[in-house]
């Protein structure tokens, strides 16, 4: 299965992936209209310190702790993509505690949010990967 991988060597810390992620999840057509005066809460986040930066988003683990931890069955693995059903989520945040990558977070709607590889919003390559100017995040099949 294709996943999002990080080439930290090429990450510029430009944070564009965060904005493309936020845009993808608004469902709007125009980025300026969608994100104008909006404080974004993206599903991919840049970690940076001492000149090193890289993007962190859901790894879509083969044995996902978050899915095991979910008490309401909101988190499910569908063909390897771990998705969240917001109607089922009760906001207990056990998944956030159990994710070793810190890739699950609370959303504005009071439930949790995480990267779903843009399967809900957009066919094909996830927007963060499309928007990365330096191939620092890639969407590919790796063993």
């Amino acid at each position, binding site marked *: 299965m294709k996943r999002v991988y990080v080439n930290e060597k090429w990450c*510029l810390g430009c*944070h564009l992936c965060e904005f493309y992620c936020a845009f993808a999840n608004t469902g709007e057509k125009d980025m300026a209209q969608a994100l*104008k005066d909006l404080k974004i809460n993206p599903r991919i986040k840049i970690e940076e310190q001492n000149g090193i930066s890289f993007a962190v988003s859901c790894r879509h683990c083969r044995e996902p702790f978050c899915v095991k931890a979910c008490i309401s069955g909101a988190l499910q693995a569908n063909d390897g993509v771990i998705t969240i059903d917001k109607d089922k989520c009760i906001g207990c945040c056990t998944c956030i505690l159990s994710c070793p990558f810190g890739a699950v977070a609370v959303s504005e709607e009071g439930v949790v949010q995480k990267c779903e590889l843009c399967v809900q919003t957009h066919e094909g390559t996830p927007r963060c990967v499309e928007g990365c100017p*330096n191939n620092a995040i890639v969407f590919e099949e790796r063993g």
Partner: protein
Amino acid sequence: MAIRYIYSEYEVSRNTDRCIVCRVCERQCANEVHTYLPEQNKMTADESKCVNCHRCVSLCPTRALKIIKGNNTYKENANWSNKTMNELYRQADSGGVLLSSMGNSENYPIYFDRILLNASQVTNPSIDPLREPMETRVYLGSKAVKIERDEKGRLKNNLLPHLKLSMPIMFSAMSYGSISYNAHESLARASEELGIYYNTGEGGLHEDFYPYGKNTIVQVASGRFGVHKAYLNQAAAIEIKIGQGAKPGIGGHLPGKKIVGDISKTRMIPEGSDAISPAPHHDIYSIEDLSQLVYSLKEATEYKKPVIVKIAAVHNVAAIASGIARSGADIISIDGFRGGTGAAPTRIRDHVGIPIELALAGVDKRLRDEGIRDQVSVVVGGSIRSSTDIVKAVALGADCVYIGTAALLALGCHLCRSCHEGKCNWGIATQVPELLKRLNPDIGYKRLVNLLTAWRHEIEEIMGGMGINSIESLKGNRLMLRGVGLNEKELEILGIRHAGE
């Protein structure tokens, strides 16, 4: 604050309706033009620091940015232009020589743009390159002038070492130091994939690039940086650099602050020491001296590699080329006055040297008149901008062209001409670690391959139109060229007729 004599050349125009305050402009500008104002949650710009490199414009996700020409003006004066006045103010401020980067940007005639190409009609049918074979391969080096046979009458192999190229294009000399490791890697990988050559420039060859040796031309310049036996033997050819089109008669100076880490090791000089290339080679004061260096290098590499001698196009270029052809060099490379540079004194760059079109025509004619044209191949550079420039150069007599600026443009350069400041926002002409990584060679080499693949298609298309199916048949074929708006003298030097004749 002191009096500010020089106004900003550009203005940063931000469409606040489109700006989403993502701050990518701020993060990507090494000149610190953009700033975030937290209280107002908006961006502001200090255009006085802007060099117009377009990094922010290219990366702005909502296309909210535009760099426009500042229209702050002094009283109009045809003699004292705004630019001239600014340069004077700058020197009155600093007391220093003006520095510039990349090629001559002044308004001199561009002869390539005054030359038109021929095409076949009716009597000599054109060729469709999509249906019929079309040859763009070239060999560079000294051609065997006569057929020799041994006592049994069998042909003797008297061929001298040659460079084999899939198309008549090479990447010109740009040193590791003046451009980044990633830029070099992009050039090396593209050369390997395309079956052409790149040139190390005078900064030595990083050991990581030894595997690309068969696509590498190594340079021996007046500073002799990084020259050792393994370096010479690693290469496909060796180039002796006498001069550079951007700064004929001038040496080079890579400041000590760029001589860091691997660059110091590759150049074989201590970290932090200035890399000064003298104006002349201190052991070359005549063609005989040049010949000694040519043969020293051939001796060191067992006569297996062609030797190139590179000169800037200057007034007596034809006579100089004739001398070089007789010195034992296999290839002459001529760099026109529009050739690029990482740094040159502005006055030299803008006022010294001659156009490559005229130099090439003069050299080709002189070598043919003297019957020594086959002894050498001629490579020209100094602002080859497109496939048509290449076709015109080949028809004027060149065997191959060097491209430098065009290659850097493919890597992202926007010709802001600030290389000498060392803060290239595109990761090309810099050694600052966080700027370096902006050029990912995986992307860069593909863009170079794309560019030259496109140019090769165009060259084939143009040749097909002329009814020519091999680049060898185009070489020196000046009947395929006609001048427009050129005077008698210019036509005579170029050796072409006027359109309509």
